């Protein structure tokens, strides 16, 4: 391919990609749900950045037994917990765990899922069969059980929680990737790519995957919502991040003992988990409509 031709296709794809993103953004902006979702998510990310810069680990683990169980007040907007620590700071600090889990576990699920899914979809035959059987096996093990066992083996910290939740989502991504690759593969432009002598792998990752990206992005955002919830569930059962670190699921689990007269301990972390999952779900829907508008009509 002479350089001139290459620049030509690059420019065209550049131009082509530009306005596609722009078009998606324009459609996204008009969808009220997606905008609300985006605002909430940005607010949470801002909170996380604020907590990274201004809230130190000591500050949220220092214990003063004087004002324990203080109800929400001006000084402590979310009240204080059983060890007199400011719940708001702890929740803000905890946002990094939930965000990490949301993005991280989906990243793991997506990368592994797409890789195997697209190979299964593209090559078919016994490769497809093998990978699909593995996916069946992984999906027949209940997600929480898998998560529990992984956290027990690797130990309870953020990375392992990420892996535990991510692994549970791999089967879903494999199927999704395979389905979209199968539909894309049947189109002509893949045949033409093969005709000009592209290698199989290059075809997969330059032609097939980009075009089957939109359903994957939609599943990814929806999956973020579910992984935030399953991470919180695992911590609630005691298989997540350990106590002093204020992970939202663990906060709720800890607050169970004081439900009777300090319900705010359970109320606010749950609210934030809900907001996070709500934002991801809304964004997922908004993206789904923005990426393939015919669904919207």
């Amino acid at each position, binding site marked *: 391919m002479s350089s001139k031709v290459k620049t030509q296709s690059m420019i065209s794809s550049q131009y082509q990609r530009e306005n596609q993103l722009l078009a998606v953004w324009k459609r996204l902006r008009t969808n009220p749900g997606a905008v609300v979702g985006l605002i909430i998510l940005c607010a949470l990310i801002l909170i996380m950045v604020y907590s990274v810069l201004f809230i130190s680990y000591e500050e949220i683990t220092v214990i003063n*037994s004087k004002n324990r169980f203080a109800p*929400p007040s001006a000084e402590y907007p979310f009240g204080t917990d059983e060890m007199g620590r400011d719940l708001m700071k702890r929740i803000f600090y905890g946002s990094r765990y939930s965000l990490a889990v949301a993005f991280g576990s989906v990243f793991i699920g997506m990368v592994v899922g797409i890789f195997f899914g697209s190979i299964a979809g593209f090559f078919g035959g016994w490769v497809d069969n093998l990978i699909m059987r593995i996916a069946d096996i992984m999906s027949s093990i209940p997600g929480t059980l898998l998560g529990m066992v992984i956290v027990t083996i690797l130990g309870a910290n953020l990375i392992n929680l990420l892996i535990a939740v991510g692994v549970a989502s791999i089967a879903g991504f494999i199927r999704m990737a395979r389905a979209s690759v199968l539909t894309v593969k049947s189109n002509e432009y893949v045949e033409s790519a093969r005709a000009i002598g592209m290698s199989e792998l290059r075809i997969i990752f330059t032609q097939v995957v980009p075009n089957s990206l939109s359903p994957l992005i939609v599943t990814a955002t929806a999956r973020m919502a579910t992984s935030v919830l399953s991470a919180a569930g695992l911590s609630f059962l005691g298989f997540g991040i*350990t106590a*002093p670190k204020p992970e939202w699921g663990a906060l709720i689990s800890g607050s*169970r003992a004081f439900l*009777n007269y300090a319900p705010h301990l359970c109320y606010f972390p749950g609210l934030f988990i809900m907001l996070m999952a709500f934002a991801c779900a809304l964004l997922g829907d908004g993206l789904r409509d923005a990426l393939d508008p015919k669904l919207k009509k």
Partner: protein
Amino acid sequence: MKKIICMLLCLVLCVGLFAACGEKQPAPSPTATPTVSTPPSGPTELEYYDELSLYILDKVAIIDAFNPGAQSTANGIYGHMLYDTLVYCNLDNEYVPCLATEWSSEDNKTFNFKLREGVKYHNGETFTADDIAFTIDKAKDAPGTHIYDRFNQVESYEIVNEYEINLTLRSVNVDFIFDISQPIAPILNREAYENDPEKGPWVGTGPFYLDKLVPNDSLTLVAFEDYWGEKPLCKKFVMRHIAEETARLIMLENDEFTFCDIGSVYIPQFENNPKFVIYSYVMNNLNYIAFNMRKPITGDKNFRMAVAHTIDREAILDIALDGYGEIAETGALWGYKTAYKNMDLPLIERDLDKAKEYLEKSIYNGETIEITASLPHTINSAQVIMAQLSEIGINTELNRLDAPSMASATAYDNNDTDIVVGSGAWTPMASSCRSFLTPGHNSNKAVYDNPEIVQLIEEAAATSDGPDREALYYRIQEILADDIPYLGTFHMALYIGAQKGAGGAAYFPTNYHDYALAYRIKNPQ
């Protein structure tokens, strides 16, 4: 129409949520001292409830004294009711005749027991010496059970006649009578076991027999008519396990539980509530901080002294248990109010400057110390300890393990933890010292290996009661106070909420409570 339903639904939900965090009950004042209410006056001819119910901490999946999978503190509780032991040890540690009317031993090695006649098992069989022989034989090949720990020390037995038996121990043990007086050493029936392996183990000579067992959920016991001893004051006794604390407190409030443990946090709520009575007792479990003597940093005495001078026991107790418990009174590492406790050993008080001095002298320079804990209240106290240690610059990280991981992580040979925050039942008996202080035992979380201590413990186990045994124990406590492999923090106080007019339960520091004579008066004053 459907629109209205939707709106109604979310309205109710929001109102409900706000109502939840609207009302406030008085937060507990940490300094309130626990008032121990005296049980109501002796029962004149009053009416009693027929059915009582109790919350038990453990899930009972199967009842079989010889099954290692069925061991838990609940064994003791239903043990008191289903079975009898040879000797009964009451609250003041006096030995009361039970299945054995008399017992004697010259050298604390061979014991002679005269047995009670006319005692019936639940399946109608009569109790004879042969049942003791059967129980000992079966116990000796069931390691991993409580009954094994009690009867494995019996080397041989000799049945003199139907109602008399001599037991010979492997080695002298002063505390043998105490050991077999525990409810976890019942005498079971041979015939019952042989012809019904599943329901056989339920058969005992106790005041109740087991009517129904729903695995991992509940036990239903019914009063046994021809019980040889004092008849129970209720017809039916249900024991239930409820996992969620809030749920069981609600059930206590709605009179679905007659007796139920209440967390220290909820005591004020039940304390000044006329509908309830609170019983409390202090467990002889000592909550401790164990330093891994084999690892460099925690093995360094200066580091341990620095930690000893930093921890503030009052604050730990306040946060972990809302102040409901007793701080370790002396430097001695011993059970709460247990015999042979050296009360005048000095307790190391909190002194941050001294702590910093020791820290300089120690080889510690900033490494992260891993604090391992497993039980819920130990995790809370670990967090408080971590906060206090950070005041003098020791960085720590909490490693929470579940029970099996804790057991394997702190196994004696490959214990890799730095500090373990735990709690252990410390009885005056040589066996419990042995399990905490001698090498090879799993409870020895400090991996403490001091030949002098081992030698002293063997001596104490052999000497009969009296001053020389006390001197040996004092000597052990002095060495421990100097070496500080363990640092005692506090003793937990446990509280049992009961409906007004309910009582008659004996609360033992070993947690094996005796509800055999529990009752509930119909309309208390």
